[in-house]
């Protein structure tokens, strides 16, 4: 669990100064992945119009910023360097984050603004300044992401039963790992929010978080709860993207699992190490498969849909 800021202050200072070779290598790899997956072939992948590159560029830049903000926040709240590095990596290679980075996405802009606001708030201890940051962040969020359903004067029209079922759907394995149908027209709906190979990391991560949960941690979970409820109460559900705003939480939970995984690997027996290596191979395989899916099959689908739309309408 994210540790107390005061107790970890000295450790943070130390870790800031000491960057080992492997950490540097990790950061460079993550940064390279980030640049390639966000800006590589941005104008043509997914297929778009003549000005797609410039139209998409702000979101791509925002996505990079969102990852930087997220890692800095985690760094501020936790002394665990591995956790920070893994969280950054998982955000960088998350299918949903990549997909939203490469289109014009108000949700991505909203995420970046939110994370930027939270990061700014961690830089000060003055309540007034924090309140000011909150207001500015709120206004900016409204400006960049006006399509959030509550901003549009739409009334909550779901039954309690539907709303609760939506809540469960958003945290179901089917949605998270298999069918992200939150963005039907143009979305990457044949994949989940995360890849299936993240599951063996997410589960121990959740285990760790659940067993170390304290009532005081609710404030850290508050944004997750708000966005989760907001997404589930969208009258157009499942066509909603508010749930995208919780993606840093999923990255952190997965990162906790990766830290546990690494500990097991370092202290494990031969059989445990072999199993973990096999899992790591599967993880890399699935990540490659995802890029193939994205660049070939998703690309083809979007291209065909665009042709169909042009011919039909």
């Amino acid at each position: 669990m994210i540790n107390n800021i005061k107790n970890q202050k000295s450790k943070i200072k130390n870790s800031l100064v000491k960057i080992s070779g492997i950490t540097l290598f990790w950061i460079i790899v993550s940064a390279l992945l980030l640049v390639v997956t966000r800006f590589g072939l941005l104008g043509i992948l997914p297929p778009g119009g003549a000005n797609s590159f410039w139209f998409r560029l702000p979101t791509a830049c925002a996505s990079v910023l969102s990852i930087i903000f997220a890692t800095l926040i985690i760094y501020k709240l936790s002394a665990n360097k591995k956790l920070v590095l893994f969280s950054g990596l998982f955000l960088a290679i998350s299918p949903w984050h990549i997909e939203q980075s490469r289109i014009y996405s108000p949700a991505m802009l909203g995420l970046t603004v939110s994370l930027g606001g939270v990061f700014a708030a961690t830089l000060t201890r003055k309540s007034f300044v924090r309140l000011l940051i909150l207001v500015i962040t709120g206004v900016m969020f409204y400006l960049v992401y006006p399509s959030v359903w509550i901003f549009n004067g739409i009334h909550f029209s779901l039954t309690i039963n539907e709303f609760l079922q939506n809540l469960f759907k958003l945290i179901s394995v089917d949605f998270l790992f298999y069918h992200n149908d939150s963005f039907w027209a143009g979305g990457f709906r044949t994949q989940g929010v995360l890849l299936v190979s993240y599951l063996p990391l997410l589960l121990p991560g959740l285990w760790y978080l659940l067993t170390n949960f304290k009532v005081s941690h609710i404030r850290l979970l508050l944004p997750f709860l708000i966005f989760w409820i907001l997404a589930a109460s969208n009258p157009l559900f499942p066509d909603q993207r508010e749930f995208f705003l919780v993606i840093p939480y999923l990255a952190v939970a997965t990162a906790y699992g990766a830290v546990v995984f690494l500990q097991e690997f370092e202290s494990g027996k031969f059989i445990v190490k072999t199993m973990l290596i096999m899992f790591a191979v599967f993880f890399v395989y699935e990540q490659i498969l995802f890029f193939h899916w994205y660049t070939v099959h998703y690309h083809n689908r979007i291209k065909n849909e665009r042709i169909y739309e042009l011919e039909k309408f």
Partner: protein
Amino acid sequence: MNWKNFKSEKFLILIIIIVATLLRVIKLDEYPPALYSDEISQGYNAYSVLTTGRDEYGTWFPISFRSFGDWKPPLPTYFMAPTIVVFGLNEYGIRFSSALFGIGSIALTYLLTKLLLNDAGVALLAAGILTISPWHILQSRSAMLVSCELFFLLLALSTFFKGLSEKKWWVVSAASWMAVIYSYYGGRVIVPLFLLFLLVTFRKQILAAKSQLMLPVITALLLLIPLGIVFVKQPDVLFGRAKTVSVFYDQGVVLTVWDLIAQDGTQKSPLLVQLLHNKPYHYTIDIIRRFFQHFDGRFLFFTGDLHPPFQIPGMGILYLIEAPLLLIGLRKLLISYKPYRTFILFWIAVSVLPAALTFVTPASNRTYTMIVPFSILIAAGIVTIVNHFKKLSTRNLVIFVLSVGYLCSFSYFIFQYALVLPKKHADWWHFGYQQLYQYLKTQEDKYKVIAISAKASVPYIFLLYHYRLPPNQVTGSIDRNLVVDEFGFEHVNRVGKYRFPRHFEWEKDGVKLPLQTLLVLTPFESVGNSAREIKQIYYPNGNVAFRIYEIE
């Protein structure tokens, strides 16, 4: 625990058992609304074995009942025999043993939970939760194999853990493990896994008692021999029609892979394409998906099992109020019950495994054995919440709120089960056959042939049951088609003057029917002009179950 507490604990478990008995045996003949084809098949075969020593196929004391070609495990059928002696061949005779296993499993849940967690409060609550569980009541009130499986699994586990201190119990445990195998197909997957897990986890205690292992091992092997012999003769016996419901039988994955390979075109290296799109990967992720579907909140708390006949309309297999309790109980388990937490998590996982290997997911019957660990977790959740509050008045308030929550949930369940289900899912429970055969009995002398469509169910078994045809006469008079269909079922073409077209089509089958034929079809099937509708059989909601025509 002092004597007074011990007495109150005994009193409470007695109350739980009484309530459980009332909920499971009252009006067994009315709820569920009719006997399902599998129940009737088992009941009739139990009756057949009871009267002749042979099943409907003429097999002497079968180790596996061939039934509809699905080779039903034998134990539930044999356990029906005594209740059929007592009540006769009717709903009570068929379902009563399942209800008894349900009641017994509640008592065993209490004992096992106490053995594992050494917490009488959690044990009593787990038994209490099981008593009013919609999932448990539904399965206990119908004769569907899994009630028997759960009982013997609990007996096997309880006696195994008891045997860690008193080794004599391991003989009972060994026999009970084998009983699980003879109760349900899923047991044949989970028993080896359970035994392996227990062997690894408790290897020190087991190896320390080597000399006392001989008897349990011999008992188990002796009990396994009959199944082994039958398996050698007829391999289908082991997993019934598992082949036809397995994920590997379903063409979905194969077609997906083909489609993806085709999309990749011929320009890429075939090896690379094969590496990217291959069946092992797709099957793996498909099985994982099906596994986790059983933990989807919508399945657990809202829709339940959508496959006939296991759904209670408008609710899940657990109460919605139990959602937070389950989560809190899970946390409690992970933190506090360390010696047995792996075992309980393993139990849940292994219970889902047989279902995850099929394409009919999520399924509540194939995963039925996880109802007990779920009840334990919910009970642990309740105890954790109540104990969290130190002040007595707050604690009482929490207990009051939880009690009201459970009372409302239970009332809603009773309403849905007793009033809504018979109207909404009467067809799932094969309602209408009793009324149909009562009518046909009065008409059969007037007609040369009576043809009944097999679209709704397996009509021949309802004929044997409702006419109480003597088993010794039945065996020779049934004309069977032993070629299995796409769902793994065999077919009966004819019993006497009764014919059962497998897929009735008027253009193909109707013209072959002679004059003076009475034809029974579902509302979804049509007939030509030469047939005159003479009667309809209705479901409780007023919809038509069967249309009866006379061929002129």
